């Protein structure tokens, strides 16, 4: 298992390298003038100036030269001795949509998305896993049928339609749950931002009112973001649990007279949850993609809404940087899931 993880870690640089190549190829499709956003903030109106900038920053160099510059930066033609660009230096260029360096934007937007995605796992586990186990235990009873129906219908409902309807009912009409990330009074409130995760900061500051405010703001986005995953988890847990309950050791446990509750909770469920853990890797990917639409609808200031805005303005330099960063997060998440999986399942020796 250790070997497997070490191997995964060793392959990671290759994957990361490949990811940068893929992203750079997309930049390449753009052409030199659009790529200028890597180094200058404004679209030069004047053709002569555009040409000057292309030459100045080597935007018509051979592809490998440009790739290298994009990766590690190039000497700044305006400031001798300094370097400009280079994603490894954290310089992703300039976001023309948000009028600030992309890296700054990422720093501003990342915590919100992280917080939202993490909390989105709560209902997934509560609804998906719990209901899945119930459905399997009460196989073919009404709860199972309802769960099945729910999972199919849940899968079929387009996120953007559901999101807007939820907002109209629970925000605009009932005013139960607000949109955005925090209320305006919290923005003015005086508390130390240790982590930029509002709920965490609120607790660290002992401000339960802020914590509650942040939670209330996340309710609708979380539902919108995660409901398809409830459905997916439900079906996985259900079928995995059903499979486990048919295993001999469970039958043996029952035959030995172990109480039914213990059979389910101690014998069957832990094993049934192994495939569920694997699935959470896919779920991270799904949630990270889902934030694009969810954040846009609920005006949640994370990376998803920023990416949607940037894409709408064809601010590709920004979108590409976001894609690269989410890809990186996804890779890390998958690594964690794999390690968890390897630790949970004694049967596999993936070395």
């Amino acid at each position, binding site marked *: 298992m250790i070997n497997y993880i070490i191997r995964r870690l060793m392959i990671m640089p290759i994957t990361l390298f490949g990811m940068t190549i*893929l992203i750079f190829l997309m930049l390449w499709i753009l052409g030199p003038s659009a790529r200028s956003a890597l180094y200058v903030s404004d679209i030069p109106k004047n053709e002569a100036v555009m040409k000057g900038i292309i030459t100045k920053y080597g935007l018509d160099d051979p592809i490998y030269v440009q790739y290298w510059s994009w990766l590690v930066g190039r000497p700044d033609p305006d400031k001798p001795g300094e370097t400009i660009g280079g994603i490894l230096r954290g310089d992703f260029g300039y976001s023309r949509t948000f009028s600030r360096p992309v890296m700054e934007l990422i720093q501003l937007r990342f915590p919100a998305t992280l917080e939202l995605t993490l909390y989105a796992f709560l209902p997934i586990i509560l609804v998906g896993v719990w209901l899945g186990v119930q459905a399997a235990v009460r196989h073919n009873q009404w709860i199972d049928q309802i769960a099945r129906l729910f999972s199919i219908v849940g899968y079929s409902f*387009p996120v953007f339609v559901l999101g807007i309807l939820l907002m109209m009912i629970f925000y605009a009409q009932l005013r139960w749950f607000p949109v955005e990330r925090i209320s305006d009074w919290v923005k003015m409130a005086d508390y130390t931002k240790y982590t930029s995760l509002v709920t965490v900061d609120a607790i660290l500051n002992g401000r339960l009112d802020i914590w509650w405010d942040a939670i209330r703001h996340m309710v609708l986005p979380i539902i919108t973001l995660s409901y398809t995953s409830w459905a997916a988890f439900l079906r*996985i847990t259900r*079928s995995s649990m059903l499979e486990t309950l048919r295993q001999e050791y469970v039958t043996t446990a029952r035959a030995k007279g172990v109480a039914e509750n213990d059979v389910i909770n101690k014998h069957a469920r832990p094993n049934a949850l192994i495939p569920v853990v694997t699935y959470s890797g896919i779920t991270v990917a799904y949630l990270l*993609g889902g934030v694009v639409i969810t954040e846009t609808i609920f005006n949640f200031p994370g990376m998803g809404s920023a990416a949607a805005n940037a*894409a709408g303005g064809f601010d590709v330099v920004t979108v590409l940087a976001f*894609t690269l960063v989410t890809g990186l997060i996804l890779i890390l998440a998958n690594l964690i899931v794999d390690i968890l999986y390897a630790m949970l399942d004694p049967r596999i020796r993936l070395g």
Partner: protein
Amino acid sequence: MKSASESMTPLSEEAIPLREIGKLERFLGPEFYRIFRGVFTNPLSVIGISLILFFILVAVFAPFIIPPVKNADPFMIPRDGYAAAPLPPGTKWLRRPPELPFWYTPLTGSDEWVHIFGTSSGAWDIFYGLVWGTRTAIIVGVIIEGVTLLIGIIIGAVSAFYGGWIDEVLMRITEIFMAFPFIFAALTLSAVLTPRLGKGIWPPTIAIIAFGWMSYARLIRGDILSIRERDYIMAARVVGVSDLRILFKHIVPNAIYPTLVLASMDIGTLVISFAALSFLGIGTEVGYADWGQVISFARNYIGVFSKYWYIIVYPGIVLVLFVLGWNLVGDALRDIMDPKMRGNVRR
């Protein structure tokens, strides 16, 4: 010397009759028959199949259900003026209505077109958009699915068959493509391609294909690897069948089924992805008959649901039924193919 047939006296086993088998099963082959039977005996999936068939019929007969306006591109939704406020179902079509279809007068007793489902914001006819949008959905679904599948199968097959460093390289590439969240990646590539290719179905189609083939490649690779070890492949090699013939006659036909099933289930999801990109403002030309457009016309008016319900309810029903159809069938298929199918989700 006795003739072969004489020498081989029928053995007692001959008394055991062959398993009773229908023409259909013989025609479809065992696995396919099992899938087929599973799908057709499950009431939910029968509903799903009916839905899918319904949509295919609508797509095929779109010109008869609602003919295009004269001299106009049939894939552009006709507008009855340019007004912002939606018109409710049954409003008379005033400006350049489409020709009357054969069924209209007999059924309604009227010879004036009305907006059957009303118009969306911008005076776009919802009914037209949905009917012709079905055509787009099926076309786009089939193109995306077909190309994605082809790429997936070729990469997966090559990878599994050659193994070694080719496998290693191809799987690393697959992993790289999988490293990005799907919507992010598709959004990005569409945004990159649109300035190059112009608005239309192509940028999102290409983007969805580019980031959609990996699951197929992985699935078929795994299946080929396991099938490659089967005895009947050995048997084929023993009789001297060439590698290429083994790959295409023995391995691929046996390995392809789970992938095909997975692929068929994905069409519904693909249409939603396409619509989602449309929602984010990336995709076809404004007014192009695709469901994403129809929904995005409605986008700003969902706020007054009680008055303008028809602009979102009708497109919503169509989209949900379409996806539901595929999901019902997919659900049944997954039950049949489980656990192989587990963990394949993409959206």
